[in-house]
């Protein structure tokens, strides 16, 4: 048994929020370069260059890559041999978010109720927290700071087994097509298959945590990802929806077991400001 004071978590979460907003992952840069080389549209090529310039300036000026610094989504793996002391675990995460968004000059984008009042909570809380209990005595905290523009282009569909893998691919491609320039392409397409209604959505979001340069460990899934990526890039949407060959730079799929009557499919769209950072305590 390892005792961890929840107060230790606060500065770690604070730093995750600030770092994720400024420093883009190497995998995103690598993929953008690869696609820029293949890009046929001059406007698209120039847009990708401006994205690189933005990544450089964000670090130089210590400013967030995008003004929408997102809702703070946490995927936490809590070791079952950890004993949390010193206060409320969830509140410690929220306090870290509060401090990070204030001290990092990040935008506060949360409203207290979704439709009637829509009053800004002014500190970007509450965070969305998903907890998994795992073996061990560590806590692994992953923050995904999710922007609203790309999140809005996401969708869950309860399909039928008879739709087959082709039906699933058609749905994913169509979802990207209907999104057009709205989610700030180049995008990353997260796909969750199986589980149930809500788990498919969670799988789609979690799939985005896999490095973009890492292939799917299941060969047949890797092939499906390649097929979706090719079809998506044949849509011609291009960076910002202004036309081009670079609509998506990666497709990531996560799948799980599901009920004999069901075939849930979820698509979570992620923009090129793909912010996620992990810390282990």
């Amino acid at each position, binding site marked *: 048994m390892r005792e961890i004071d929840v107060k230790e978590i606060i500065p770690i979460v604070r730093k995750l929020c600030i770092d994720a907003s400024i420093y883009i992952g190497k995998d995103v840069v690598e993929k953008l370069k690869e696609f820029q080389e293949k890009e046929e*549209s001059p406007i698209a090529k120039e847009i990708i260059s401006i994205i690189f310039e933005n990544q450089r300036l*964000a670090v130089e000026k210590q400013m967030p890559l*995008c003004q*929408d610094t997102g809702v703070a989504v946490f995927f936490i793996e809590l070791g079952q041999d950890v004993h949390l002391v010193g206060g409320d675990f969830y509140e410690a995460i929220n306090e870290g978010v509060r401090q990070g968004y204030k001290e990092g000059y990040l*935008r506060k984008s949360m409203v207290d109720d979704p439709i009637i009042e829509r009053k800004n909570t002014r500190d970007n809380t509450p965070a969305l927290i998903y907890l998994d209990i795992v073996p061990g005595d560590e806590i692994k905290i992953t923050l995904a700071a999710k922007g609203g523009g790309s999140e809005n282009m996401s969708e869950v569909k309860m399909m039928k087994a008879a739709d087959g893998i082709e039906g699933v691919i058609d749905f994913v491609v169509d979802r990207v097509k209907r999104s*057009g320039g*709205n989610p700030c392409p180049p995008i990353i397409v997260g796909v969750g298959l199986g589980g149930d209604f809500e788990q498919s959505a969670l799988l789609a979001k979690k799939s985005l945590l896999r490095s973009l340069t890492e292939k799917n460990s299941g060969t047949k899934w890797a092939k499906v990802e390649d097929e979706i990526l090719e079809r998506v890039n044949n849509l*011609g949407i291009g960076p910002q929806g202004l*036309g081009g060959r670079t609509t998506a730079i990666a497709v990531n799929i996560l799948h799980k077991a599901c009920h004999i009557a069901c075939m849930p499919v979820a698509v979570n769209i992620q923009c090129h400001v793909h912010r996620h950072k992990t810390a282990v305590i």
Partner: protein
Amino acid sequence: MPGTKYLQTPLKDDNLKELKIGDKVLITGTIYTARDAAHKRLVDLIEAGKELPFDIKGQIIYFVGPSPARPGMPIGSAGPTTSYRMDPYSPILLDAGLKGMIGKGPRNKEVIDSMIKNKAVYLAAIGGAAVVMAQSIKEAKVIAYEDLGPEAIRELKVENFPCIVANNIYGNDLFDEGVRKYKK
């Protein structure tokens, strides 16, 4: 890119006449920020026959909710937000004299028709290139709806603010034509 054009606000019909979709434009002058919540309030004022917090004639509205400014800086990161959420409001503002909009993503038919009718343009800024865009913003001050936080209306002084013409006054649409060109 086909060509770079310079625009000064308030916009004049003569300058807008020559804009083609895909043109790169650099804007200098004053522009105003507004997102969903501010749009709703502006439209409510127009419908109630009341005066707007700024003179909208010939002006540009930039769809943005910037991040907070660091001390000594005029503004934080300031890239565009998705424009379709403003589609229900834009035709009313265009009828009131608005001449330009800056945002990201395509507009609906009502907005495009209203741009033709009112000789107005829609300019695409690059979503997610928010630090680049902030470099062209020299001053920012909240002029209305402070209670809305990031969604308050700000008056921005910009110099060579970079955009791409997405819809010109003739109804051409880069979102449509660009995609058709590269579709396979």
